[in-house]
């Protein structure tokens, strides 16, 4: 009985608007990361680049193949962003990113793995159901998606925040020794030991706060506010590096999924108005 009730929750249909907004932001992040990955690949695959094959079965990659791989990545990312053949482009994008990650350990980065997981889940979740080229070609019908994959996306983000918080529970980080090493754009004069300790504790506590606050209606707006500041500061203070932009954009993109039905309804009407379509067709189910 409980199982069937749980399954009913996962099958429940919800508005596809937040998922569409998430897809657009993640598609943009994938485009940025794809461009940056081209230059990373060129460096790693050059004669001086240190190769680090992850597995015996790692897929082959070469300087000749690199532009093709990245070309497929960029085309798939663009199609995913605009929602053209969204499921196919999402699948191709996910496979391309997975290939890139498995090809060599020197190409691996946590934020690319995170991007891969989110692209995969957005593909499964039918994120092209609303505000996409596919949706436009279908005559802009009322767009609803199953709640199960959306819940998985939200849980995935909670898992990342939770384990990122756990990883920070170490003496070196909490004593402020680690953060200054990473804050390359932060003025040295301001980085006193007290500031380093306070910032380290704040980062750790905020990640734990975001694990649950995004789910609680009363705390959600504060969580989104602090999350946006946190991820903005990561980019500004650490370095304006494509990896950090990708990570911050991808994780912030999922914040749309936490909005309430009422907030989504307002959002949908505004987007529909902007696109010049009939907002009446998008009444909440």
């Amino acid at each position, binding site marked *: 009985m409980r199982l069937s009730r749980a399954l009913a929750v996962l099958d429940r249909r919800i508005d596809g608007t937040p998922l569409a907004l998430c897809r657009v932001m993640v598609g943009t992040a994938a485009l940025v990361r794809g461009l940056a990955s081209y230059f990373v690949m060129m460096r*790693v695959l050059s*004669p001086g680049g*240190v190769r680090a094959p992850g597995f015996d079965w790692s897929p082959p990659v070469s300087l000749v193949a690199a532009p093709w791989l990245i070309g497929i990545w960029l085309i798939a990312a663009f199609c995913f962003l605009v929602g053209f053949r969204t499921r196919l482009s999402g699948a191709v994008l996910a496979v391309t990113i997975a290939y890139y990650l498995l090809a060599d350990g020197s190409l691996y980065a946590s934020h690319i793995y995170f991007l891969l997981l989110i692209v995969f889940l957005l593909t499964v979740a039918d994120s092209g159901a609303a505000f996409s080229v596919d949706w436009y070609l279908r005559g802009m019908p009322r767009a609803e998606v199953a709640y199960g994959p959306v819940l998985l996306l939200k849980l995935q983000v909670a898992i990342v925040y939770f*384990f990122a918080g756990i990883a920070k529970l*170490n003496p070196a980080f909490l004593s402020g020794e680690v953060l200054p090493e990473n804050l390359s754009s932060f003025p040295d004069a301001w980085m006193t030991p007290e500031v380093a300790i306070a910032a380290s504790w704040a980062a750790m506590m905020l990640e734990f706060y975001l694990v649950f606050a995004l789910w609680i209606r009363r705390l959600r707006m504060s969580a989104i506010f602090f999350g946006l500041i946190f991820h903005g500061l990561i980019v500004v203070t650490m370095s304006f590096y494509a990896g950090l932009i990708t990570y911050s954009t991808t994780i912030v993109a999922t914040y749309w999924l936490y909005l309430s039905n009422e907030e989504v309804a307002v959002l949908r009407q505004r987007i529909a108005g902007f696109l010049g379509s009939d907002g009446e067709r998008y009444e909440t189910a």
Partner: protein
Amino acid sequence: MFFAIYLSIQVYLPARCVVDGTHCRVGWVMMAHQLDSPTFFVRRASGQEVPLAEIDPDRTLVHVERGSTEARFIVRHLCEQIPDTVAVRVIYARPQREEITPCD
């Protein structure tokens, strides 16, 4: 079914990293630990030992992408790329230790 399998994997992998206490790639560590940039010394057939920074000051022979590459791969690369190398000594800062790896 998909929901349960996906969630189990995504919880298990980072949890395993925490339990093992290792710096796993799928552990969502996110710059939570100090960077350990080891120092490399190339041992020549003559017995002379030269710091890598002296051999390759412009990093044209050895390019490591954002420090994400394990030292063992850099050692192998040095053996392959720098002629007359018989072994590589690596000094780690955290925790302090050193390793000497002969080139095959």
